[in-house]
């Protein structure tokens, strides 16, 4: 049985998160802080979306930045070229990217481990080339200007609206992840993470499972990217199709913990704020890259379970020092077995 704390903790954290989303805009002292909040929420949605693939199946994608970029460009182009209303374009773009995720997943999910990581990087580089050189449609490296959905709205109000839109999207992504986490489908995905061949041998159609969750992940990622396009209003291929974006997402998810519903959100808050701070203090320098690489390395080496799980494990250890460990149960079991063997031998 899941323990009471494991059942109520997510609920408590969820309530806390909703409250924080509701009050933050009124507490933010200026539009800059509010816009930082929007950026952090964008990261939180991206990291949570990534975690559909990374957390459940264990496939580490560095290409999710590109899926967000696709969502952004699709939204922008559907507005500018097809004259769709902004939010219709956003949803249509997400569906489009989800559809595109089928062939992408079909190719990428055939390989595992490091090979998958490399394929996901290749995806980013290919898309960067395409979007840079296909300038008649995408605007190339001059960028694409996306019309604002609320013309005439003032800056602070604009940030506030998007903060809430992102908040709603985050809650939707979290609710979906939670639903999968407790489902049979989710159990199959976790089995894939643990031992894919074994899962397959028990009757799980592993490829179909992976592909499905990849498509779901891509759709949420595209929604975040599309929302960003509507908010920021200007897309540049160099930033939209960047391996760095994908690396930040992975760092956030791993730092917060990929096996935990709120792990990626926590990671996004920590890393997202750090990124904003660095930008203000040092501007965009190679320091970004070095720090990201260093942090990624440290987390993978020392906290592969992430920060939340490591802390939770520590609390657990402190709380039930007296509780017997499994190894002790095993030892008792063995003793009992030996006793029975002796009895059998004596009789």
């Amino acid at each position, binding site marked *: 049985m899941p323990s009471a704390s494991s059942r109520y903790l997510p609920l408590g954290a969820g309530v806390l998160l909703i409250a924080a989303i509701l009050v933050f805009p009124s507490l933010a002292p200026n539009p800059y802080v509010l816009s930082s909040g929007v950026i952090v929420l964008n990261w939180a949605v991206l990291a949570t979306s990534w975690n559909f693939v990374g957390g459940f199946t264990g496939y580490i994608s560095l290409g999710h930045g590109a899926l967000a970029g696709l969502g952004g460009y699709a939204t922008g182009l559907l507005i500018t070229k097809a004259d769709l209303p902004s939010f219709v374009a956003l949803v249509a773009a997400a569906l489009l990217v989800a559809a595109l995720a089928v062939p992408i997943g079909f190719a990428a999910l055939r390989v595992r481990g490091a090979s998958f990581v490399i394929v996901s990087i290749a995806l980013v580089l290919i898309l960067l080339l395409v979007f840079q050189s296909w300038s008649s449609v995408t605007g190339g490296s001059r960028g694409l200007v996306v019309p604002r959905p609320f013309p005439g709205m003032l800056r602070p109000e604009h940030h506030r609206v998007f903060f809430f839109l992102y908040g709603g999207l985050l809650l939707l992504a979290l609710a979906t992840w939670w639903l999968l986490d407790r489902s*049979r489908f989710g159990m199959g995905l976790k089995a894939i993470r643990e*031992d894919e061949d*074994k899962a397959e*041998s028990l009757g799980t*159609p592993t490829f179909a499972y992976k592909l499905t969750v990849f498509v779901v992940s891509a759709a949420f990622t595209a929604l975040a990217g599309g929302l960003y396009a509507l908010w920021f209003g200007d897309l540049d291929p160099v930033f939209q199709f960047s391996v760095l974006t994908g690396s930040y997402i992975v760092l956030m998810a791993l730092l917060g913990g990929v096996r935990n519903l709120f792990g990626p959100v926590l990671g996004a808050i920590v890393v997202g704020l750090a990124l904003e701070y660095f930008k203000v203090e040092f501007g965009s320098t190679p320091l970004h890259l070095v720090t990201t690489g260093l942090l990624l390395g440290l987390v993978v080496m020392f906290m592969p379970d992430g920060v939340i799980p490591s802390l939770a494990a520590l609390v657990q250890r402190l709380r039930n020092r007296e509780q017997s460990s*499994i*190894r002790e*149960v095993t030892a008792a079991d063995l003793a009992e*077995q030996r006793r029975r063997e002796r009895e059998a031998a004596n009789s």
Partner: protein
Amino acid sequence: MTLQTRGLRKAFGGVVAIDGADVEFQPGRVNALIGPNGSGKTTFFNCVTGMIKPDAGQVTYGGKDLTGRAPHVVARAGVGRTFQLCRVFPRLTAVDNVLAAVRPGGLLHGLRSAHRRDERERALGWLTRLGIEHLADAEARNMSWGQQKLLELAGVLMAEPDTILLDEPAGGVNPALLDRIGTLVRELNAEGRTFVIVEHNMDLVMSISDHIVVFDRGRPIAAGPPAEIRADERVLGAYLGV
């Protein structure tokens, strides 16, 4: 349903692991597949269950052609298996290891809770039957080798296969557990499950099987009831090195 292969062949580079094997395992029996190290027993299991594709030949189950089908298709046809180096899901709890064998029928089915009471009860039932229910909430990686072997079997049983392939169930387990596994196989067989067991422990093989197939260098050299196999000179020559 009869599990049958015709002209099965599999080579790894120059090593011919399975060399045109015609084998038949009748339903309702405890079948054994024995043979010296490297004679192709595990490769045979892998070909039958779709883990590797044979170079040639045919695998049928109850007359249905399963050659080269994906492992999950073979599993869903009713053939379950364990692995020689016992495979469990290390960071899932024991009960989740068993629940992972539940196959949702469709999308809505798949979104239902994995811990629905009836299924959890069924999973706990298998853990109880194998004597490891007290470890239900322990992560598999913290369990002993013997416990992991029992857990692996519980997962396979949860999927309700008609035929179960066991690759060295007695490998590395203590004598008490060995007895328990032997008894369990006979019980499960009496309940209607067919077994094919790869095993080096001859006492166990001779005591629990109805039918024995002997492999040597990738093909069967003898088949029959235990008494017959024990007396067969080719078997003694190939297997016991006499």
